[in-house]
């Protein structure tokens, strides 16, 4: 920028600005300042320009500070909001975790005994030979093992399920043998389930999944199975209420006829635990449902009208442990009569109740002889 020829160099507005902003070369500044030392007009002009520049800078700084303050406040607000969301998410996650653990542990009354399979236990705490495993699959597919007492091995029909008298469990205070014989109007129809053989076959498959069950499974494929869990059903015992057209009633009548043929007196004289036809010995035991192994509880809960029973082969015959809250007295228990009414069905007759079971034919063959 050429130095102007005016008396006062500060009249050149651009030169003045450049000087105030310090953009002029040192040599030129020196020459201009020589004039400034003696010219009050230029001194005032320089001072005015400096004030102007200072004011503009202050204004710009103030606006930048204001914008910065707004940005920082917005950021703090977003941070607080995010912190609130984080706290809410943490609480929600904690609730989900607690709920999940509670479900697994059965705190809320559902999913009892856990979702995962547990070790099976025998009736007295020892590992059992047979253990149904997958609860959901078992609940859906596990049909009551004791099915309609049919001459062949029919699939359980809904008609039979509706008509069959379910097994009864009553409290110790309320139960009497007489009550067991009385029909209950609130007996629910048995849910239609898989065919009997299918249920038993599924039971066999579940056995293979457990080390101890593997032995039973191998046994089931062969004539002699060491142990078997079966769900029995109480059959109608009141003659007045019998419907002779029903297949299970026919089986019951057949059992009674078989007993009568043997003679009442002969029955009393004969060892009471021996199957009348095969002469095989049955040893009956009873336990309350509280003593059921954990693995059987879900069956007991899903099929409350059925009686969980463990059949176990021994050297001297077959131990039958009936899990029933209504205790039979010892005399009655030991007086149980077992009659094979079909290839895969037996009826166990006590004084106050009659229980029907559907078992694999080969198992029955092994304990009672081939029919």
């Amino acid at each position, binding site marked *: 920028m050429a130095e102007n020829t005016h008396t006062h160099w500060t009249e050149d507005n651009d030169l003045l600005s450049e000087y105030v902003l310090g953009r002029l070369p040192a040599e030129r500044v020196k020459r201009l300042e020589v004039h400034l030392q003696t010219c009050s007009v230029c001194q005032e002009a320089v001072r005015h320009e400096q004030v102007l520049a200072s004011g*503009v800078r202050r204004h710009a700084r103030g606006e930048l500070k204001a914008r910065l303050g707004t940005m920082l406040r917005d950021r703090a607000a977003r941070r607080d909001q995010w912190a609130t969301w984080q706290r809410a998410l943490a609480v929600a996650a904690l609730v989900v975790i607690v709920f999940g653990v509670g479900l697994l542990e059965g705190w809320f009354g559902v999913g009892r005994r856990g979702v995962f399979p547990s070790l099976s236990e025998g009736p007295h705490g020892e590992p059992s030979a047979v253990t149904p495993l997958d609860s959901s699959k078992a609940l859906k597919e596990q049909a009551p093992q004791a099915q309609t007492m049919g001459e062949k091995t029919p699939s359980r029909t809904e008609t039979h399920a509706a008509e069959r008298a379910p097994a009864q469990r009553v409290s110790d205070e309320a139960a009497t043998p007489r009550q067991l014989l009385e029909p209950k109007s609130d007996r629910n129809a048995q849910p239609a389930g898989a065919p009997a053989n299918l249920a038993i076959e599924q039971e066999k498959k579940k056995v293979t999944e457990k080390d101890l069950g593997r032995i039973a499974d191998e046994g089931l494929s062969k004539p002699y199975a060491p142990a078997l869990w079966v769900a029995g059903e109480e059959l109608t015992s009141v003659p007045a209420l019998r419907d002779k057209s029903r297949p299970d009633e026919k089986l019951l009548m057949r059992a009674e006829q078989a007993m009568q043929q043997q003679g009442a007196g002969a029955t009393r004289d004969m060892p009471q635990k021996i199957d009348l036809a095969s002469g095989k010995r049955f040893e009956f035991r009873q336990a309350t449902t509280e003593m059921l192994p954990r693995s059987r509880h879900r069956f007991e809960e899903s099929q409350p009208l059925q009686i969980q029973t463990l059949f176990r082969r021994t050297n001297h015959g077959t131990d039958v442990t009936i899990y029933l809250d209504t205790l039979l007295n010892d005399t009655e228990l030991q007086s149980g009569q077992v009659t094979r009414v079909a290839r895969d069905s037996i009826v166990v007759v006590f004084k106050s109740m009659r229980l029907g079971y559907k078992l694999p034919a080969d198992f029955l063959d092994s304990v009672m002889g081939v029919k």
Partner: protein
Amino acid sequence: MSPRLFFLNEDARILDMIRRGDEQALVTLHEANRKMVAAFIARNNGTHDDYEDLLQEALVILWERVRSGRYEHAAKISTFLFATVRNIWMRRLAKAKREIPSDMTLDESPDPEHSVLDTMIEEEEALAVQKALDHIGEQCKKLLTLFYWEEYSTQEIANQMGFANADTVKSKKYQCKKALEKALKQTAERYG
């Protein structure tokens, strides 16, 4: 589209953001340095409000220096900010006649040729200019800000604001200065 730049360190990235006019850089610097500054101010008779104001002022000074090309990146940005905060705080303490911690000294001695009265007069006049700027229109305000604060050249201003050339900017600047002086005069007449 400009190629993406990769920076060797955070300071370089921040400085590039400032040069591009990205004010988020100041927010980032504030977050990174607030604890250090807060601790310093608290140790030296300051309050929370003091630290916030000081840090923002230091950030503005940094912005000004970088944008005008007068910033020398000789040390870390946090070092510059801390030194700036320290200087501003010392001057404020001296002004308010608060107790100055013994381990602190003023880095800048006052100009002996410039009296306190002159300083006060200049500050008042600058404050008047600051207020008058709100009455001259946004375009003039922006032009003068780019020229005096960000120290853009006239050609740069022409490019930034869309003027035809540097001469047009010079002419416009002269008009804006006249408008500012007029606003100053009116303000002075209004308030005596």
